[in-house]
């Protein structure tokens, strides 16, 4: 298996760094899937993650000036690696004002992803910082657990308000209750509700707008003001919101009543899907 890629454009480098910072906030350990056209950061819905799953996808040609990979085999031309997300974001932090960034799969005493940053220096000689990120190659038989999650038909699909606002609301709510109800309707209304013995707090967001529903029939049957709700763990929602440092280009929330909430974001050209299951 081989992998080698290079970024020379400053803007691409910064964008890639921001994405890796976001991933580091969302998942301590994640899977990196390398395929000829894409890179994916994956978190599968194991119990260890609390049932949360994440699927982040980017088109490699939007970032890398050079990209070569050779997967497991010709039929399965992909590479699945497990790594500690923080290592990657820390390595990329070095590359803030770099001339070039190279990433490659190496085996220096242990398999690693080597991130090599060529920095500007006053003198003519180049200054290079290299980071060897230890990785675990995921065997072929486990790949089936790491596929793109199926997105079920949502009961309600709604655009999200400004994430920073949502985050500050949820942060305060976290002090009062450990679980929260997120509900929305087809009339552009979204509510965040917490309830304890002593107090009930609801934050209402209005006029958010709904994307056109996939199936026309359901929209005719349903009362647009009817709320679809799901109870979730507030910390998981907060972790998701905390990971969004920059307001996304597009942010969508799909609710399947009492099953799960699915966030679908687009950061410029990178898509992020995040699934939080309902509390049982």
């Amino acid at each position, binding site marked *: 298996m081989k992998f080698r890629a290079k970024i020379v454009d400053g803007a691409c480098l910064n964008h890639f760094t921001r994405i890796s910072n976001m991933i580091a906030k969302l998942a301590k350990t994640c899977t990196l899937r390398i395929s000829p056209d894409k890179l994916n950061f994956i978190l599968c819905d194991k119990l260890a993650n609390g049932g949360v799953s994440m699927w982040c996808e980017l088109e490699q040609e939007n970032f890398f000036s050079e990209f070569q990979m050779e997967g497991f085999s010709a039929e399965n031309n992909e590479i699945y690696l497990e790594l500690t997300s923080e290592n990657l974001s820390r390595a990329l932090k070095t590359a803030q004002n770099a001339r070039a960034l190279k990433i490659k799969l190496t085996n*220096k*005493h242990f398999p690693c992803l080597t991130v090599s940053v060529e920095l500007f220096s006053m*003198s003519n000689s180049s*200054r290079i910082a*290299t980071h*060897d990120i230890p990785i675990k190659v995921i065997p072929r038989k486990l790949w089936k657990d790491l596929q793109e999650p199926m997105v079920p038909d949502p009961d309600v699909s709604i655009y999200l308000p400004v994430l920073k606002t949502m985050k500050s609301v949820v942060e305060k709510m976290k002090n009062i209750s450990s679980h929260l109800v997120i509900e929305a309707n087809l009339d552009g209304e979204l509510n965040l509700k917490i309830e304890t013995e002593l107090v009930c707090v609801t934050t209402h967001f209005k006029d958010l707008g709904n994307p056109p529903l996939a199936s026309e029939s359901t929209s005719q049957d349903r009362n647009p003001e009817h709320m679809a709700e799901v109870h979730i763990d507030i910390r998981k929602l907060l972790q998701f919101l905390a990971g969004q440092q920059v307001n996304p280009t597009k942010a969508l929330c799909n609710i399947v009543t009492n099953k799960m909430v699915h966030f679908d974001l687009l950061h410029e050209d990178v898509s992020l899907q995040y699934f939080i299951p309902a509390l049982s």
Partner: protein
Amino acid sequence: MKCLVTGGNVKVLGKAVHSLSRIGDELYLDPLEDGLSLRTVNSSRSAYACFLFAPLFFQHYQAATPGQDLLRCKILMKSFLSVFRSLAMLEKTVEKCCISLNGQSSRLVVQLHCKFGVRKTHNLSFQDCESLQAIFDPASCPHMLRAPARVLGEAVLPFPPALAEVTLGVGRGHRVILRSYHEEEADSTVKAMVTEVCLGEEDFQQLQAQEGVAITFCLKEFRVISSFRTGKGSGMPGAEWDDLAWGSRPLPRPAIFTIKDSLLDGHFVLATLSETDSYSQDLGSLERHRPVPQLQAHSTPHPDDFASDDIDSYMIAMETTIGNEGSRVLPSISLSPGPQPPQSPGPHSEEEDEAEPSTVPGTPPPKKFRSLFFGSILAPVGSPQGPSPVLAEDSEGEG
């Protein structure tokens, strides 16, 4: 002792105190004829820092009132630092700083004369002490590199904040390499990220070291060193250089960092880990072939209790002076080599240092940070030197 610091030098003094505070908890103030010396050593005796401010640094400098002996004192770093805590405040509001040491009142008085006629007076209590002087000689180090402080400061940026130790060495093509150092873990399931920074020869004013040579020292202290600037700006002639000098095998030598300015001299001495016997040609594969020592803090030093100390543990050699005359008596060397017959001089202990640390079957090998100074720490063969292993200062008041 009385001295007066004015203008921008107040901030420089403050920066020096900040650097010292990141190394040790006690500050040794030593007014000498050739300037005011501020020194500290860390609790495990593996890092020593010393700043010497030349008389010209001060608007007025008087080491001792005529007819009186040179006083020296030791104060709590926290107390002294609190005077200089806010560098921004020092820069903006302090016009003059007056430090005076009066033996009779046993107070160190630091007075800050600020704008608008505000005067802040700090009375700090101190302890008499013996001089803290580490024995080292940068001139006799075979390896040396010299670079602007900025270069080393930038070089440490890529390393994770939590990293304990870093290895500095010279690789192929005379490139200087800084690499994160991780001890070989028995449990190798979780590996740590390895970071390496490679600098070209051109970044250094001077590079005098063979390829393959390397030393390992504590990164936290190295960061303190690399972040110190006198901050006089690039316009000033005589910009600061960092001289880094270190000794060669077989004995692990400390790394000595020197910052020189026209008005101040800074020395930082860091203990280094002992090296493996074989250099690798390509420093990129610097590998520890045996378990290496790790820092062991001696939090409460027991000067007389040597049985408990590991046979391979050494501390930075300190020279102590007895009495106020300032005359150097037979240097008392601090060693804690365990029970040692009085006649066994240097070479014996050095051999032990080279040997594998003694292991108890079934337990991981003891890991110790080793630091040795060249030659001077151990009495030369044939000298009548008794064991006399004592620490830097008297055990008076040390509990």
